[in-house]
């Protein structure tokens, strides 16, 4: 467990009982977990806290999983979303242009599968983020800013990328 990186997971589902047990198990397995019981609450949390992976239920009252996922990605572009869906709605989710979800899992989800999916999503997030970070840092060096300017700009980037 100690070798596992600190993966920050945001769980979004209106089924409070489900979230309770799911987060307990994930916490015990070494994940950093935050729970939100609605799409709206998830957006609020994401405005102040960085996450690597969001697990979002597709069907929720109010803001549904599709919209929540969209908004989360607007706030944190590198965040990877795993969408939990009832059976049969995978196609409809894909059709409505939600292919940018990292993965779709059928409810009830096998816990081991969920953990594996979160880890894969995290890898993807790091990969995409590193690539972009490198590109931007290189662009910074190429821009001819002085040492002070570069340090300041990198500080800004760190903030955007949620790198502590």
């Amino acid at each position, binding site marked *: 467990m100690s070798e596992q990186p600190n993966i920050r997971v945001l769980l979004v589902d209106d*089924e409070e*009982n*489900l979230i309770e*047990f*799911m987060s*307990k*198990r994930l916490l*015990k397995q070494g994940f950093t977990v935050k729970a939100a019981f609605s799409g709206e609450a998830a957006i609020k949390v994401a405005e102040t806290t960085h996450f690597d992976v969001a697990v979002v239920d597709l069907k929720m009252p109010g803001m549904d999983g599709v919209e929540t996922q969209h908004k989360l990605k607007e706030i944190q572009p590198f965040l990877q979303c795993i969408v939990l869906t*009832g*059976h*049969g709605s995978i*196609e409809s989710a894909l059709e409505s242009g939600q292919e940018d979800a990292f993965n779709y899992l*059928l*409810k*009830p*989800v*096998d*816990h081991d599968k969920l953990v594996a999916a979160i880890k894969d999503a995290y890898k993807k997030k790091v990969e995409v983020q590193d690539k972009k970070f490198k590109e931007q840092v290189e662009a910074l060096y190429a821009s001819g800013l002085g040492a002070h300017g570069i340090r300041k700009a990198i500080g800004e980037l760190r903030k955007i990328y949620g790198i502590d």
Partner: protein
Amino acid sequence: MESTKSLSSELTKVTREVASYKIELDQTRKYLHCVLQNSTDIIFMTEITGLLVSFSKGAEKALGYAMEEVIGRPVKDLSEDAESFEALMVKSRLKGNVSAPEIHFRHKDGTRVHCHISLMELINREDNRVGTIGVCQDITRWKKLQEDLVQIDRLAEMGRIASGVAHEINNPLAIINEASGWAEEVITDAKGLNPDDREELKETVRKINLQTRRCRNITHKLLDFVRDSAPTRAEFDIHSLLKDTVDLLRPELKHTAIEVEFAFSQESLPITSDPRLLEQVFVNLVTNAIHAVLENGKGNGHIKIQTIRTDSGVDVSIEDNGGGIPEEARASIFTLFYTTKPPGKGTGLGLSICRNIVKNLGGELSYQSKIGAGTTFTISIPTPK
């Protein structure tokens, strides 16, 4: 002399005319005969008291009687409700003609024949009523179709309800799944637990887990089956699809003594087709096999599912040791709405839909049957080269 001549020419003229009328009459007679012989409608004629004097071929076919059997009998005796039929005859006498959207005749074999009927009075040259002509269309198939549509609609509704229920069950199931998983971890870590108790608790929770997974398989399979989407093409292993199909039907097999044998080809057989549609075909055929074996009532029920690679693709055969398909039913088994099952038990859709699906997938559905020995259905699925 002159008058004799004119009389003679008049006679010749009349003779010619009579000959031409005779030809015309002959033609009309042939025409009527042809209509009576070939119309599928029930056409009959009665004399004034309602005794049959003519009975068309269509009538013979629809009601099962030969003409000689019914000529001279009151036509009302052929109907289910002689009194109402008589009332209709009286009405036609008063009004000249009358029709009714539905009356019931009784076929010689005792079954009901639904008919639309028109009755017309037959009047002679002197304007006297000499009998009645009846023309009836057999609408039994149409009535059956209507009843079946109601049944199909009910089944479709059941499907919708079942998928809604399955969806709803998935949520609490997800909670049980996570809660029992958590309990397992708590039990593992709990301090001061007697080892035997710990093992027992763990085992209990594992059982909860296992049963939850079982429920999930059921709900997922059910939703998979009900969901409708456009035909797809995917590569998959036919053997696992067949095993899944039998798993889906386990509840039906559970309280029977039927043994299902898989006689799969040694090599794995990946095929490219629509797995969901093929599953529907397999579910139908295996269900039919189960019913065939159960109806037969023998103790040693056996269903053998075999796969063979062929030159063009894969052959899947489903063999049962039921009673076989009766000779008289064979011509109709692929006909839409044909069923040998009691009312409410079968829609007569299964095989005809199966054949359509297999045809649409570019394959073929065939069967072999032997009375007392059983039936084998074979689905030939082509593999694209």
